[in-house]
């Protein structure tokens, strides 16, 4: 049976190799500082005891005053899953987080989709352009303030 990391447990694991990178946890998610996310992601994938080889799902949620980027990770060797959350775009400002395409190839299309529909930019993505909608489309439809 696949086991989900408790937020607290995964936070402690991350603090072991990246002290100060986490900013808190909820019941089953860890909040990571966007500035150190790339190092944390590298560690999550490469450290033997964690072994998060696959990025199952990358998604974004619009919480009006900020955006949240949610990463569902999966370790095939340990059969465990973990959830990481990043905060960006405080006060609906410029929303950007580092791209993890160098760590997980699976982020490629998911980051493009998140940019297209939610308007969160992923810095370092080699091909950051719209995926579903056409070039020249205005706005990002999944934002809560998007008007039809």
């Amino acid at each position, binding site marked *: *049976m696949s086991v989900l990391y408790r937020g607290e447990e995964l936070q402690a694991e991350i603090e072991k190799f990246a002290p100060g990178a986490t900013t808190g946890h909820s019941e089953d998610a860890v909040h990571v500082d966007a500035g150190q996310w790339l190092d944390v992601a590298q560690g999550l994938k490469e450290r033997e005891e964690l072994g998060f*080889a696959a990025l199952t*799902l990358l998604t974004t*949620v619009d919480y009006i005053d900020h955006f949240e980027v949610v990463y569902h990770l999966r370790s095939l060797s340990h059969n465990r899953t973990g959830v990481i959350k990043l905060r960006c775009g405080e006060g609906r400002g410029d929303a950007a987080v580092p791209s993890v395409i160098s760590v997980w*190839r*699976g982020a490629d299309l998911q980051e493009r989709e998140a940019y297209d529909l939610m308007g969160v930019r992923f810095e370092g993505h080699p091909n950051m352009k*719209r*995926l579903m*909608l056409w070039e020249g489309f205005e706005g990002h439809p999944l934002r809560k303030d998007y008007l039809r």
Partner: protein
Amino acid sequence: MTLQSEPVIVNVGPQHPSTHGVLRMRVAFDGETVTDAEMIIGYLHRGSEKLAEERTFTQVITLTDRMDYVAAMTNNQAYVLSVEKLAGIEPMPRGVYLRMISAELQRIASHLMAVGFLLQDLGALATPLMYMFREREDILDLFELMCGARITVSYHRPSGVFQDVPDEFWGRLRQFLDGMPAHIDEYERLISGNEIVLSRMRGVGVLDPDVMVNASITGPMLRAGGVDWDLRHRAPYEFYDRVSFDRPIMDESDNYARYLVRVYEMREALKIVEQCVEQIEPGPVRDPDVPFVLRPPVGESYVGIEGPKGELGFYLVSDGGISPYRCKVRPPSLLNLTLLREMVIGLPMADMIVTFGTVDVNMGEVDR
């Protein structure tokens, strides 16, 4: 002296018979060989995730039918499981077995389409595909008995399914279960040893297993690369821990292995349905206390299931209201296309089409 030829850019799709819908690829050719490919999608984008935010949790089930429209039952199942987790609903055992039966029948129907269209791409025009359609038709008839619809079924509900099956269903299901293994043998005789199939598909479109895991590829594609990963086995949902089945694993990771894994999985799906029929007992198919308009507590849930094409999941966020605050699909069809460019570079045009066919995508799910 070598002859230099200028690369030719060709648009394959969106209205191309081999693109399984409306996938468009801009392909650069040097003679017959693919030198670069870019995937352009979005022609079927209907904004399902945005639409879900304006509908009640139960109404969203109808949207899920229209995502992967050749596998509506598994879409229903993934969504309903996520809602149940979010709202803390305990499903009724008879409802769960009916969901498993419908989902496994849907897996067979989806794999039949995958194999049929793959042969169409190989140039076996229509004949094998019509064989597959013949058996898929039986499955759709069973769905019609279950819920009155054939494609857009909307059969599953939080806590079970919306109605019990009529008595007539069990006889028809028995007929299907008795007849299907012979049909699969027939496909194998027709296709698996066919010389053209072997020479065109063996050793073509090979992917490295570690790269596939890294690129979020799941489902039959991953299992054809030797990775033993099936969520029904590794993270059992519903009652998959009460049934036994084998997981076909191939090591070649080429187009032929991806085809064979799907054929074997059809046999395993039949086994699962057989066991469900043995284990199912009379009882309510849904909990009458679960209201039509759900108000799950504030929170979020993600449930991934082993869909016919790979890990299909729904990430739901609730703000305590009657509709999801955010409804995000994890589409296996889209993510399995991540490595498409690498797969097709260096192949001739005809093999590119076949390679694309073995990925088995559904554009309704890619674009949503």
